[in-house]
């Protein structure tokens, strides 16, 4: 074996797929009997086993096989990097996508749609008339920007000036800044304002190009839940020779006297390999690490509430799927609260059931209280499963000991940071080689 991969979360599965395509011999194991790790979609039985082991699902919710409940709420941003990887690896042939019907933002006590058509923009209560004009100037500036044409720069330097400077130059109100920074650039807090503006510029472009792509919202979503994504990449890996073993307890990461990785022990067997890649839960996260070595540390916590609803979210025009962003300033927080809702349209639950996940980065010692502004937007909640998860990050980059640990799934609403992580791990595993996507043909047409 050249590479052992531990955990079948999306990050690990993309890596294992790409490594197999590259010709590496990969052994991929998971302690669970299902794919996806933290990025799995669970049926009701699995969900109860995880959250309420002493209960069984209520019969009223319908058939177990109709459910695929995401543990991590994320959508795919249509023009983003994950879509690119899906296309280039041909993994799209295993998946079907649907749009997320709408993106909403909370302002002054109510939610409004992020406009996606001219009509919606004209009617949008998000800005007053004069503010719309100022915003128009700001967007025209962004759209006409060309790096190589100083005439388009209006005296601004995206690599020197901060977003705050630019907002001020265009005289945008704080509420508009919240809208742009949080609902479009998808920043979770306001730290970006004091940084140079380039990144925010790119994020706004990504958002708008994704929005323009299909119209209703910038997001797409795979039928049967996000858990299909790791499974598809696992299949890619298997087709290229990767070996898969689920339901395999991992008992030890074996190292030599110098701390170099040598293999993985499961029960009485030890499999040797050159390198190991895995999610933090296989490297001591939450428990004491092998031989007292701390391989991952917690850098924060996210609270997530999976809410089962019997109705669409009020104020969303009966949309079958939505994202709602509550910018932090609007509710006196440091971090935004997100709501992601999907439904039977996406084959993730029974008919007339809606699944909303409310999440935020934990700021206090009473995380459940922190998501109340989100929960209040949902109307009556039929049932709710709340979890607080740690965000782990590795203490070392793996280059010296061949132990490459991935980061936990963050609180962002899409997968762009997951892809960054894949590229970063790839580069380290491959000794500095960048990830270049080559298209390959796997179909044989008779």
């Amino acid at each position, binding site marked *: 074996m050249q590479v052992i991969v531990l955990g079948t979360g999306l990050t690990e599965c993309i890596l294992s797929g790409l490594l197999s395509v590259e010709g590496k011999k990969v052994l991929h194991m998971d302690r669970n009997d299902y794919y996806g790790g933290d990025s799995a979609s669970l049926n009701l039985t699995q969900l109860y086993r995880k959250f309420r082991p002493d209960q069984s699902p209520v019969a009223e919710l319908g058939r177990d096989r109709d459910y695929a409940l995401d543990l991590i709420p994320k959508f795919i941003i249509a023009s983003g990097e994950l879509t690119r990887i899906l296309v*280039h690896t041909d993994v799209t042939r295993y998946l079907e996508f649907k749009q997320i019907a709408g993106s909403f933002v909370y302002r002054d006590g109510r939610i409004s749609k992020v406009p996606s058509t001219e009509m919606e923009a004209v009617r949008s209560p998000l800005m007053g008339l004069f503010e719309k004009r100022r915003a128009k100037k700001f967007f025209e500036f962004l759209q006409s920007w060309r790096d190589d044409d100083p005439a388009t720069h209006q005296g601004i330097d995206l690599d020197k000036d901060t977003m705050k400077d630019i907002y001020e130059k265009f005289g945008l109100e704080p509420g508009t800044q919240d809208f742009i920074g949080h609902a479009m650039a998808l920043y979770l807090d306001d730290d970006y304002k004091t940084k140079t503006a380039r990144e925010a510029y790119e994020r706004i472009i990504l958002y708008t190009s994704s929005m323009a792509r299909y119209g209703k919202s910038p997001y797409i979503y795979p039928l049967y839940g996000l858990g299909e994504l790791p499974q598809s990449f696992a299949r890619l890996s*298997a087709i290229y020779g990767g070996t*898969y073993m689920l339901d395999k307890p991992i008992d030890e990461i074996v190292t030599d006297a110098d701390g170099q990785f040598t293999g993985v022990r499961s029960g009485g067997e030890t499999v040797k390999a050159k390198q190991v890649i895995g999610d933090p839960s296989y490297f001591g996260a939450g428990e004491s690490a092998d031989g007292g070595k701390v391989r991952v540390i917690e850098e924060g916590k996210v609270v997530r509430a999976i809410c089962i609803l019997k109705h669409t979210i009020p104020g969303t025009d009966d949309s079958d799927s939505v994202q709602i962003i509550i910018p932090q300033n609007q509710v006196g927080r440091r971090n935004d609260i997100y709501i992601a809702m999907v439904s039977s349209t996406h084959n993730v639950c029974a008919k007339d059931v809606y699944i909303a996940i409310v999440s935020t980065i934990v700021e206090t010692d009473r995380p459940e209280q922190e998501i109340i502004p989100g929960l209040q937007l949902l109307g009556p909640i039929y049932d709710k499963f709340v979890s607080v998860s740690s965000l782990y990050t590795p203490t070392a980059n793996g280059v010296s000991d061949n132990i490459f640990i991935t980061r936990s799934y963050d609180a962002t609403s899409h997968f762009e940071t997951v892809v960054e992580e894949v590229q970063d791990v790839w580069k380290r595993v491959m000794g500095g080689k960048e990830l270049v996507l080559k298209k390959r043909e*796997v179909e044989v047409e008779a």
Partner: protein
Amino acid sequence: MSKQFQFKLVLLGESAVGKSSLVLRFVKDQFDDYRESTIGAAFLTQTVTLEDQTSVKFEIWDTAGQERYKSLAPMYYRNANCAVVVYDITQAASLEKARSWIRELQRQADPSIVIALCGNKLDLAARRQVTEEEAKKYAEEEGLMWGETSAKTGEGVSEIFTAIAKKLPLTAPPSARGAGRPGPSSRTGVDLTKQANAEQASLLPPVKRSRFHNATITVLPGVLSRHSLAIPSVVPFAYLPRTSLVVYLSFTFF
């Protein structure tokens, strides 16, 4: 106009019973005595034309070895319209394995799935461990199609796939038809092509076209459907041209 259908067909069965060999015989009419365990091209298509000119395109999924350590992803048989569960007539244990796959399909797959039980390696009938009667009786009890094949000689192979092709258009429920693969060579439930076009219409009122007359709107029709997403050579998959941003932004804050 002759009818066209497209169906997802999955293969299941113990390792080395001849799943990949059956596909190879069916799709390319070849056989390989020293086939390696499945690697590589595990996504094949083959079209069967029936006497009434109905054509049935099979989108064939081979397990890629993921079943070996009980690690087949549910994604594999989800949405499958038909499953060929293969056993080796010279290995009694392989029929047991086939039975357990059939139970799994009955529990997890779409209730309308057509299942065919297939006894392979008929050319080795001298070493037979599973009788025709035993397998046939079991298939009848469970309401499965059944046949014996030899991927090596080709005997029975096209027969079993043709029998499935005949049965499928009749049994696939309307839901699978609309939402599933069938229909004239489209494979997805939602006609995303249409959806994207509809959106284009709403994004582009005629008035605006004159105002931004030199901006080409690029709403990539159908790009959401699996097929067109998979053809980046036709649909260059970079970020959209800036012109469409112009349109979006200007629409939004006019």
